[in-house]
């Protein structure tokens, strides 16, 4: 089982679209996938048309007293399940803090799912918090969507620093560019130069496309309603690249 987290300190960079579309691509490729929506805004939950409610709330999730399996909801897509978000997840930090070994709590909770799922995709809230630290300890890879802007690159450097500070062995950072508009010279410049200093960067770029916004009205992964769109194709290729790296 591989745990992949769609993460960025910055908000509005396409984390949820990344988590949902990569999860769908992984399931399409034959993997058994579970998405865990850790963001109290519950956007991934919304995309999968599931009610944003978890039995026992955030406490039910982190305490370990409730079987994680009871919280899982099937989505409408084959081999793709979801643990929905709950509004109480806004206090997930405090709830984690109340547990022993809070940073390693999430990793411990996910362990029993190994026989049921090949991939666990975590959709993380923005910011650096105890939740993020728990995610770092649980994940094999952080897939980091970056908008090709200076500010976005700065947050990636912060993230790198944080990872190094925490000394989390085995956590791979996999940044990639999202919402790329090659008509903009800044985008072109950043996208072309970034890999020179960051060999860990993924090669696939997801273009800016209005069709991605339609996920909100269709409430489904891109590939189900616009399978031939450039963005849908890019997410499928992106998963292929990630899967190869994960081995």
């Amino acid at each position: 089982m591989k745990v992949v987290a769609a993460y960025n300190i910055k908000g509005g960079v396409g984390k949820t679209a990344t988590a949902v579309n990569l999860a769908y691509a992984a399931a399409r490729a034959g993997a058994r996938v579970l998405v865990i929506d850790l963001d109290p805004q519950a956007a991934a939950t919304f995309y999968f048309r599931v009610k944003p409610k978890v039995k026992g709330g955030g406490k039910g999730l982190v305490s370990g007293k409730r079987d994680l399996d009871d919280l899982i909801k099937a989505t409408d897509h084959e081999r793709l399940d979801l643990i929905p978000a709950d509004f109480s997840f806004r206090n997930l930090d405090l709830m984690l803090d109340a547990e022993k070994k809070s940073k390693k709590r999430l990793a411990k909770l996910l362990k029993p799912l190994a026989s049921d799922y090949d991939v666990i995709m975590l959709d993380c809230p923005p910011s650096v918090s105890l939740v993020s630290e728990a995610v770092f300890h649980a994940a094999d890879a952080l897939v980091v969507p970056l908008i090709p802007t200076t500010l976005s690159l700065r947050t990636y450097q912060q993230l790198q620093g944080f990872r190094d500070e925490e000394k989390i062995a085995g956590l791979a950072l996999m940044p990639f560019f999202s919402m790329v508009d090659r008509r903009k010279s800044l985008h072109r410049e950043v996208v072309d130069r970034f890999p020179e200093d960051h060999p860990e960067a993924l090669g696939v770029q997801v273009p800016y496309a209005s069709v991605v916004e339609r996920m909100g009205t269709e409430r489904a992964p891109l590939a189900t309603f616009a399978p031939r769109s450039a963005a849908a194709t890019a997410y499928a290729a992106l998963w292929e690249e990630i899967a190869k790296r994960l081995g």
Partner: protein
Amino acid sequence: MPDLSLGHRRSGDGSPSANGRSRTPLEPTVVTPLAAIADAVRGSFAADRIEMTGRRLRLLDTVDRRLTASGSRLETEAAEGGGKEVGGKEAGERWRLVDADGRVRAEATIRGRAPTLADDLPDGPLRQALEKAISIRGLVASPWIALTEHSTALRDAAGKTRCRLVARTAQVETTGEQRSAVRVEALKGYRREARSVAERVTRRFGWTPAAPDPLTALAPILWPEPGGTADPAVSDIAQPAGPGLRLVLRALLDAIEARSRGVIADIDDEELHDLRVAIRRTRSILALLRSRATDSKQADRTLERARATFAWLGQATGPTRDLDVHILAWRAHRRRTSAEQAAILEPLGRYLAAERAAAHAALVRALRSRRFRTALARWRAVLDAGDQAWTGSEALRRPIGELAGHRIRKLYRRAVREGTAITPDSPAEALHALRKTMKKLRYVVEIIRPGVPADRVRPVLRRLRALQQVLGDVQDMEVQADALRRFGLAMGETGLAGPATLMAIGAQAEDLEIRRAEARDRFAAVFAPVAKRNFGDKVRALAGTRAGDGA
């Protein structure tokens, strides 16, 4: 889309008759289009348009339906690419082991000739699961089956699927036999909704949408119940031996005939093993019925002729079975050894396969011979002659328990005598003789087993089996080691094996010798409790004989 004209088959309909064919018409009892079912039970949900898919597949199972019995099924269909060349390789077949609830437990793509043994599958979860489920039994493929699936999703107001209605029809292409079922597919986290819809189906249509999958329901037709029982026994040990054991012998004859057909078809090595067990059990009962007071020469002559027939059959089946055991041992050795060493031993595998093919051909000739057919027909006529004809001698009239008790005492006495005489220097023949005596003793005990309280018979059988295991190991390893050397010699002389293979065969024979010696060392410890007086009392008490009597 055309209306779906299938529905749910009521339980009990279409049950297979003795010949495996359906006794009832094939049409399902309820003929309702899935769209109409969905409309009637959807409640506040909306039903999607009906979708239809179809595929061709075959099922695989052992002759004794081990997979079906374990609640799973093995499906095979052309791998993606439909048998065409994919990436320069043949696409092959996709094998899926599916649970009763439709979950795929393990799968693999099989290229080249489809294997019949789990042992020949590529390494992986499918092989592991099948090794556990079917052991060394061979897989037999069914004819092609056309599987049609109609389905619809029931969605809530947000458009989220809450459950699915699925109708499946499986039809055997060669015979037209078909089974259909409608089920409500529950989704994780939405089981309550599926339950409600299923309840509505029952209320509205009068049937429960939880029937077995049509593919599972076809299994009894595809693999009819194996004929005859492997270990028939008597339940009332007070009844006269002749009439009581006649029925056991008839069940054994059914098994012998059915297993002979399996041996001729050569679909599974274990058919031969089962045939030999049925022969040995028959011989054991015939020995039991040997009359001490010859008050009816006719009855004795008839049984004597049967004894000769089954002794001949025992001998005729021996060489093929020996080679089957050699091949099993070769496979087991190949599994234990490195890939390089296994490759070196391949010529031995080919040699054994050729020898086995020749032995099997000879056996098939015997099983198709007039001698075999006439002897079995004559024996069946004797068994069908009725109870009256089976009271012609003193032995046939005695209660089974009494007769068995006498035989058990006699065999146990002999076993203790033979076993006690065995020392570390005793020849292998001494252990072999004891093994034969123990086997006879165990068969008699097993014949009366249902008529004896379980808590009395189980501990005895457990100990007898443990001893027999050790004796079997000693003899089998020795026979196999000797045979290996013989095979090696023959292969060397005919140029079928190079020095590396011959050395590997030698090493394998050495390995067997070591394991034989280990088994031989265990003998004394396993035999000692069998020879103890209190165990003897337990053995004698089985058929109601007095404790302390006899041995």
